[in-house]
C-alpha cells in the first residue's frame, strides 16, 4: 500500500526547485494546516513525471527505515472495526441519529475535543535549513570559495610578511558579506512568494455537506467531526473517513490511497475484513466520481487512514520544474566557464612566473567577474512579480511552472458553455410584424433596439411574461435584472428577464391577469399553454401559448401584423419559415408565440380541465417568434482572435448540438468569418460532401458519434488538416482522446473542464484549466490553473503573461550577462598583456550588485512587445531560456563593445596622465612592485607606487563608469527583442528610474569623499564620463539595425543566429 502512495505529486507542482537559492519556492511545504485538497493525490503524478517518481521512491525507502518502529506502531493502530458494525451499532458508538445527524452543540463539543479535520502539515524544512540553502546554493559556493581563498591569501601574507596589505582581508569580508546579503534577500523573496501561493490555496476552500440536527448545511471541511452525518456526491472530495449508511450508484476513485485508478463502487454493506478493501468505507481526500452516498464520519484529520500515511511520507524529495531546470542548467554553464577560465588562467599565471599567491588572487578576480552575483535575486523578483500579476487577472495559478508552460501553449481545447459563453440563456432575436429584431445580448443589456411601440410587441411580451413558469427568487431587488437568480428552466428565465427588462414588471402583469389553468411543456407536445383572466375585462379569459414554432403555427389560422389580425396566408407562412430557418441557423433556440381570446362562454368561474381539454384548441392567432442563445462572453472573440495571431489553435469541445456549437464558434471566431465547413460548401454548391476537396476546407464540425468511430490516425488527420475545429455532441471521455490527439502532433495543449469526467483530460493536458465558479473540486484538483471568472479571455491573458515572463527573464538575463565581458576581459588582458589592472574585484561587485541590479529588475516590468501574441508559441524543446544566441549576443557582440568602451576610457585616463598605451604593454611587473617608486611615464615623469596606484584606481573608476554608461544602451536595447525601441516606447517608469538610479549610484561611488578609502574609487573628470558614449551609441545603433534586419527578413540568417 505504501509504495503505491504518492502524496508528493502536488508538491512537485509547487516546487520551483531548490537547486538554486533564488527561486526556491517550496509552496508545497506550507506552514499552516493542510486541507485535504493540498494533499491532493489525484492530481499528483502526471504520466510525464513518472520516471522521476521512481527515483524519488528510492529515497523514501531510505527515509522510512529510520521510521520503522514508528510505522509498526501506526500499522497496529489502523485496526478498526467500524466497517463491521451494523448500522445500529454504528449509531450507538457515535451516538448519532442516522437521519438527523449530530446536534450542532454536540458537534462543536467534538470539534473542540478533536481539533479541526486537517492533517498536521508535514514537518516543514526548518527555516534555518532553508536559509542555509539560500546561503550555500548555486553561485554562492563559488563566491564562498573566493572569500575563503582571500582569507587564506591574507593568512599566508601575514605569516610570511610583517607588513601585509589588508586588501585581501577586505575583499574576503566583502565577498562574504555579499553572499550573505544576497542569501538573505533570496530567502526573504522565497518566503514572500510562498506566502502568495499559500494565499492562492486558501482561495479555494473545501466544503462538505453535513446533516446536523436534521438540517443540511455546507460547512468547511475543517469543521467536520467524528460522528457527523455527511452526504457526498459525484465530484466531491471525501471530507473524512466515512462509513456509508446509504448509497446510490456511488463510485469512488481511491487512486490516491491505493494506486488503483479504476473507480470502485461503494455501498453500505460490509464486504471485506480489511478496512482498505471493504466497500462500505470512503477515505479522506479520495474522490467521489459519481452517484451519491451518506455516511457517518469515523475518523478525521490525522487519525484518518490517509493522515497516518501522510505523516510517514512527509518530507519527500521534490521534483524540479522546467524553469528551475533551465536556471540550474544555466548556473552550471556559468560556473563551468568561471572555473575553466579561472583554473586555466591560474595555470597560465603560474607559467608566466607569478607567485602562486598572486595566481590565487587572479583566480578570485576571474571567479568574481564571471559570476553574475545579482542575477539570482533578479530572477526571483521577476517570478514573484508575475505571481502577483496573475493573481490580479483572475488566473489562479497553482504553480509558477504552469505560467511558463502556458506561455508555450499551442492548442487550447475549450469548453463552450460557461467558458466561451456566458452560461446564461438570453433573448437574442425577436421576429414579429414580419421583421427580425435584434435584442441586446451583452452582459450589461443596457439598450434594447427594436420597435417597442408596435401593438404586436405588447401582446408578444404579455404572452412571454404570462405563459412562463419562471420567477425571480426573492430579495434581489437591488441587483440588476440580468444578474438576478431565477427559478425555472433556462429559456423561461431568459424570457422572464427579457420581459422584465424591456417591457414591464412581470409580477404586476401576473397579478392583473391571474393564471387560471395551464398545460406545462412536455417533449411530446412541445408547447405550453396557460389561461389567464383578461386584464381589461376581468370576466373573460385569454389562452396563451408558446412552444416549438412549427407546432405553434399548426394551431394558428390568423396572425398579427402591427396589432391587426389577418388570416393566415401562404406569404405569411413563407415569411415564418424563412425567419425560423434564419434564427435556427444562428444556433438559437426558437420559440413561437400565439394566443386566443376565449369567447364569453368561458367567463370567469369556468372550470378549465387541462387533462380532458374542454376549451378550443384551434384557430389561434400567431404573434411572433423569440429566439434565445447562450451568448458568447464579450471578451471572447477578441481573445480567440489573439490566440489565432499567437499561433494558438482554439478547439471547441462541447456536448451541445452541432448547429449551436457552430453558431457560437462562428460568433467567437473559432470558425472565422468567411470560412466555411464542408457542409456549408456543399449546401451552396449542391454537391456531395465527398466531392469537395478537403484541402479547400479549413473548418470542420466533428460530431461526437463520428469521433467514436474514428481511428486515431483519422483523428490525427483532422487535427492536422483543419485549422478551425469544433467537436460537438462529445462526451467528456472524448475530450481526453482529443487532447491526446493534439499532443501526438507535438503540441502543448491546454484544456479546460469543469466536471469530474473532465479530470483525466485536465491531467493529460499540459495545462489543465479548471473553472473556479462552476468547476467541481475534482477538476480543480486535477488542474494546474483555475480560472476564477470561468472566462476564456483569462486563459489568453495567462498565455500572454506566461510568454511575457519568459521574454522578460530572457531580457533580464541578457542584460545582466552582457556586463560579464567587460568584467572578465580586464583580468585576461592584465595577465596576458601585462597592463595595469583595468577593473578591480570590488568595482566588479559594485556593478553586479549595485548599478546593474535595479535596471535588471526593471525589465520584469517591461510591457509585452507588440508581437508577443503574434508569434508562434515557444517550442519548449529548442527554445531555451538561455540559448547560444543569447550568449552570443551578450558575450560575443554587445559585451565586446562594452569592453572596448571600458578599455577606451582606461587608456584615455592613463594617456592623459602621462602613460601612453604603447608604453603600458608589459609594464605590469614594475607597476605592481611597491619598491619601484620612480616608474617613468611616457613624458619622463617619475611616479611613486602609491601615486600610480591612485591613477590605476582612477582608471578602474573610469572603467566602472563606462560600463554604467554602456549599460544604459544595453538596458534600452534589451527592452525589446524584435521591435524597435521607438515602437516600444519608453513607458516603463521603473526602467527609467533604473537608469537614473545606476547613474546616481555611479556618481555617488565616484565622488563621495571617503570612497577613496572605502572602495578605492576616485573622482573622475567630466570628460572621462563621456568617453564611453560613442560606444553606447554604437550599441544602440548596432542593435537597432540588427532588429530592423530581423523584422524585415523574418527567418533570415541574422534572426537564426542572433534572435534570442
Amino acid at each position, binding site marked *: 500500500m505504501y509504495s503505491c502512495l504518492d502524496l508528493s505529486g502536488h508538491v512537485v507542482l509547487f516546487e520551483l526547485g531548490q537547486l538554486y537559492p533564488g527561486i526556491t519556492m517550496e509552496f508545497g511545504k506550507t506552514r499552516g494546516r493542510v486541507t485535504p485538497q493540498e494533499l491532493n493525490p489525484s492530481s499528483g503524478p502526471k504520466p*510525464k*513525471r513518472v*520516471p*522521476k517518481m521512481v527515483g524519488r521512491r528510492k529515497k523514501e525507502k531510505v527515509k522510512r527505515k529510520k521510521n520503522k518502529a514508528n510505522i509498526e506502531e501506526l500499522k497496529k493502530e489502523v485496526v478498526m472495526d467500524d466497517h463491521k458494525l451494523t448500522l445500529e451499532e454504528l449509531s450507538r458508538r457515535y451516538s448519532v441519529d442516522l437521519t438527523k445527524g449530530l446536534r450542532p452543540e454536540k458537534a462543536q463539543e467534538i470539534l473542540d475535543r478533536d481539533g479541526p479535520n486537517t492533517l498536521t502539515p508535514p514537518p516543514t524544512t526548518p527555516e534555518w535549513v532553508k536559509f542555509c540553502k539560500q546561503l550555500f546554493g548555486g553561485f554562492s559556493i563559488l563566491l564562498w570559495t573566493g572569500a575563503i581563498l582571500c582569507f587564506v591569501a591574507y593568512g599566508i601574507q601575514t605569516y610570511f610578511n610583517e607588513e601585509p596589505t589588508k586588501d585581501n582581508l577586505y575583499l574576503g569580508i566583502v565577498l562574504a558579506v555579499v553572499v550573505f546579503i544576497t542569501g538573505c534577500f533570496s530567502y526573504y523573496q522565497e518566503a514572500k512568494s510562498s506566502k502568495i501561493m499559500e494565499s492562492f490555496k486558501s482561495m479555494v476552500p473545501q466544503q462538505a455537506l453535513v446533516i446536523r440536527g436534521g438540517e443540511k448545511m455546507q460547512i468547511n471541511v475543517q469543521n467536520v467531526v467524528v460522528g457527523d452525518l455527511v452526504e457526498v456526491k459525484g465530484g466531491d472530495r471525501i471530507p473524512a473517513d466515512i462509513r456509508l449508511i446509504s448509497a446510490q450508484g456511488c463510485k469512488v476513485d481511491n487512486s490516491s490511497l491505493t494506486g488503483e485508478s479504476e473507480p470502485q463502487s461503494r455501498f453500505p454493506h460490509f464486504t471485506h475484513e480489511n478496512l482498505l478493501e471493504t466497500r462500505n468505507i470512503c477515505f479522506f481526500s479520495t474522490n467521489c466520481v459519481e452517484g451519491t452516498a451518506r455516511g457517518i464520519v469515523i475518523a478525521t484529520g490525522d487519525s484518518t487512514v490517509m493522515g497516518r500515511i501522510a505523516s510517514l511520507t512527509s518530507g519527500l524529495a521534490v*521534483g*524540479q*520544474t*522546467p524553469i528551475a*531546470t533551465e536556471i540550474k542548467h544555466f548556473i552550471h554553464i556559468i560556473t563551468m566557464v568561471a572555473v575553466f577560465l579561472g583554473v586555466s588562467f591560474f595555470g597560465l599565471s603560474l607559467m608566466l612566473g607569478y607567485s602562486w599567491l598572486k595566481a590565487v588572487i587572479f583566480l578570485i578576480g576571474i571567479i568574481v567577474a564571471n559570476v553574475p552575483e545579482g542575477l539570482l535575486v533578479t530572477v526571483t523578483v521577476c517570478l514573484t512579480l508575475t505571481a502577483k500579476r496573475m493573481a490580479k487577472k483572475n488566473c489562479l495559478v497553482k504553480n509558477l511552472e504552469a505560467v511558463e*508552460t502556458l506561455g508555450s501553449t499551442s492548442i487550447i481545447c475549450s469548453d463552450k458553455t460557461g467558458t466561451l459563453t456566458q452560461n446564461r440563456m438570453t433573448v437574442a432575436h425577436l421576429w414579429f410584424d414580419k421583421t427580425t429584431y435584434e435584442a441586446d445580448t451583452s452582459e450589461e443589456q443596457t439598450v434594447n433596439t427594436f420597435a417597442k411601440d408596435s401593438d404586436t410587441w405588447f401582446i408578444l411580451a404579455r404572452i412571454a411574461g404570462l405563459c412562463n413558469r419562471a420567477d425571480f427568487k426573492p430579495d434581489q431587488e437591488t441587483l440588476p435584472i440580468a444578474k438576478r437568480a431565477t427559478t425555472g428552466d433556462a429559456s423561461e428565465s431568459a424570457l422572464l428577464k427579457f420581459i422584465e427588462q424591456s417591457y414591464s414588471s412581470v409580477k404586476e402583469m401576473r397579478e392583473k391577469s391571474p393564471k387560471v389553468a395551464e398545460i406545462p411543456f412536455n417533449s411530446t407536445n412541445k408547447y405550453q399553454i396557460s389561461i389567464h383572466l383578461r386584464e381589461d375585462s376581468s370576466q373573460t379569459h385569454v389562452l396563451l401559448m408558446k412552444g416549438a414554432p412549427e407546432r405553434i403555427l399548426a394551431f394558428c389560422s390568423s396572425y398579427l401584423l402591427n396589432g391587426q389580425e389577418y388570416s393566415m396566408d401562404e406569404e405569411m407562412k413563407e415569411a415564418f419559415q424563412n425567419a425560423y430557418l434564419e434564427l435556427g441557423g444562428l444556433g438559437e433556440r426558437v420559440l413561437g408565440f400565439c394566443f386566443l381570446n376565449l369567447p364569453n362562454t368561458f367567463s370567469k368561474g369556468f372550470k378549465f380541465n387541462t387533462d380532458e381539454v374542454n376549451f378550443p384548441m384551434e384557430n389561434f392567432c400567431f404573434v411572433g417568434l423569440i429566439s434565445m442563445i447562450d451568448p458568447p462572453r464579450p471578451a471572447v472573440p477578441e481573445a480567440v482572435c489573439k490566440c489565432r495571431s499567437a499561433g494558438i489553435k482554439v478547439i471547441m469541445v462541447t456536448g451541445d448540438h452541432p448547429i449551436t456549437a457552430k453558431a457560437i464558434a462562428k460568433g467567437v471566431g473559432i470558425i472565422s468569418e468567411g470560412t466555411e465547413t464542408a457542409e456549408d460548401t456543399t449546401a451552396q454548391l449542391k454537391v456531395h460532401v465527398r466531392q469537395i476537396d478537403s484541402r479547400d476546407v479549413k473548418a470542420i464540425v466533428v460530431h461526437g458519434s463520428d469521433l467514436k468511430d474514428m481511428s486515431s490516425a483519422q483523428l490525427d488527420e483532422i487535427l492536422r488538416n483543419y485549422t478551425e475545429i469544433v467537436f460537438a455532441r462529445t462526451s467528456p471521455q472524448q475530450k481526453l482522446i482529443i487532447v491526446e490527439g493534439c499532443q501526438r502532433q507535438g503540441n*502543448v495543449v491546454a484544456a479546460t473542464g469543469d466536471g469530474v469526467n473532465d479530470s483525466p483530460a485536465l491531467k493529460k493536458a*499540459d495545462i489543465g484549466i479548471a473553472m473556479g465558479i462552476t468547476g467541481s473540486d475534482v477538476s480543480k484538483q486535477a488542474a494546474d490553473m483555475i480560472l476564477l471568472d470561468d472566462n476564456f479571455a483569462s486563459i489568453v491573458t495567462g498565455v500572454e503573461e506566461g510568454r511575457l515572463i519568459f521574454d522578460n527573464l530572457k531580457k533580464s538575463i541578457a542584460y545582466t550577462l552582457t556586463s560579464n565581458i567587460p568584467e572578465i576581459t580586464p583580468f585576461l588582458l592584465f595577465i596576458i598583456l601585462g597592463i595595469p589592472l583595468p577593473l578591480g574585484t570590488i568595482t566588479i561587485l559594485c556593478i553586479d550588485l549595485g548599478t546593474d541590479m535595479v535596471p535588471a529588475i526593471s525589465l520584469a516590468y517591461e510591457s509585452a512587445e507588440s508581437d508577443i501574441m503574434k508569434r508562434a508559441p515557444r517550442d*519548449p*524543446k529548442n527554445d531555451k531560456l538561455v540559448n547560444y544566441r543569447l550568449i552570443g549576443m551578450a558575450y*560575443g*557582440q554587445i559585451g*565586446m*563593445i562594452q569592453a*572596448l568602451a571600458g*578599455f*577606451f576610457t582606461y*587608456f*584615455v585616463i592613463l*594617456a*592623459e*596622465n*602621462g602613460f*601612453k*598605451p604603447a608604453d603600458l604593454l608589459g609594464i605590469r611587473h614594475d607597476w605592481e612592485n611597491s*619598491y619601484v*617608486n*620612480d616608474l*617613468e*611615464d*611616457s*613624458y*619622463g*615623469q*617619475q*611616479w*611613486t*607606487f*602609491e*601615486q600610480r596606484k*591612485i*591613477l590605476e584606481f*582612477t582608471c578602474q573608476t573610469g572603467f566602472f563608469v563606462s560600463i554604467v554608461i554602456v549599460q544604459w544602451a544595453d538596458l534600452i536595447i534589451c527592452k525589446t527583442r524584435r521591435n524597435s525601441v521607438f515602437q516600444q516606447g519608453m513607458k516603463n517608469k521603473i526602467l527609467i528610474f533604473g537608469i537614473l538610479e545606476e547613474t546616481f549610484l555611479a556618481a555617488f561611488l565616484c565622488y563621495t569623499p571617503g570612497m577613496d578609502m572605502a572602495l578605492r574609487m576616485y573622482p573622475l*573628470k567630466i570628460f572621462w564620463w563621456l568617453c564611453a558614449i*560613442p560606444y553606447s551609441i*554604437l550599441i544602440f545603433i548596432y542593435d537597432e539595425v540588427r532588429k530592423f534586419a530581423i523584422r524585415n527578413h523574418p527567418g533570415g*540568417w541574422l534572426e537564426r*543566429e542572433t534572435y534570442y
Partner: protein
Amino acid sequence: MTKKEKKSFNQCMAEWKLFLYNPTTREFLGRTTKSWGLILLFYLVFYGFLAALFSFTMWAMLQTLNDEVPKYRDQIPSPGLMVFPKPVTALDYSFRVSDPESYRGYVDDLTKFLKSYDLEEQKNLTACPDGALREQKGPTYTACQFPVVSLKGCSGVEDPEFGYSTGNPCILVKMNRIIGLKPQGKPRINCISKKTATLSTYPSNGTIDLKYFPYYGKKLHVRYLQPLVAVQVAFNTTSTGKEVTVECKIDGSPNLRNQDDRDKFLGRVVFKITMHA
C-alpha cells in the same frame, strides 16, 4: 517536458560523437561548414569593424594629446624620493666589507646610474648659474650640468667602490622628475638616522639647487640630469651594531610634501643598511 531520462554512458558518448561530427547532416560541432563559415565571417567582420572603430577612437584620442606635456599633472603634484642602488625587493642594503661579491651588485648599479653623469657626457650641457629657477621659453631647451664631484666620496671618481670596501657605503637619493615642478624655498634632502652612525650628505647640507627646475619633459628637455644627493654612512667604530635605519626627507620647500599616510615615498624614503664585518 519535465521528463528527464537517465542516459547511459554509451548513449552519452554516442551523442557527443554525433555532436562532434554528424555524418548525415555533415555537421561539425552542431554546424555545417557553411554555417561555420557564415558565423565566423560575421564575427570576423564584426570584430574587424570594432577593432577599426577602437583604433580610430584611440587614434583620435592620441591626436588630442600634446607630445611634450601630459594633459593632466594633478595626479603627481609632489615628487617622491628614490634611492640608488635600486632596491629589488625591499629597501634593505646588506653587505660584508670583507666580501667584495656581496656589494658588487650595489657598486655596479651605482656605476651604471652615474654613467650619464660622466664628465664626458655632460660636456655639451649648460653650466647654469646657481640658486635660481631656470625657466626656459624654448624652442630649444637646455639641460644644466650636474657636477658629479659635488658628491665627493660618493661620486665614484675617487672611490670606484663608493665606500663599500671601507665600510662607509654611499646611497644616492634623488627626487622624482615631474614636469613643470617649481620648488619653493631652498629644497634640501635631510637625512637622519636613529642609530649611532654618522651621516654625511653631499653636496653639503643635501642641498638641491633650483637651477635644475623646472623640468620640461623627456621630449623637450633632452639629456636632462636630475640633481642628486649622496648619503654616506660612517659607523661609529665603538658601536657594536653595524645596522642603521636612515630616513631622508625633502626639507625647506613648502610646496614639496614629505608626509603622507599612505604614500611612504612621497618626499621621503626610509632605508636600512646592515654591514657585516
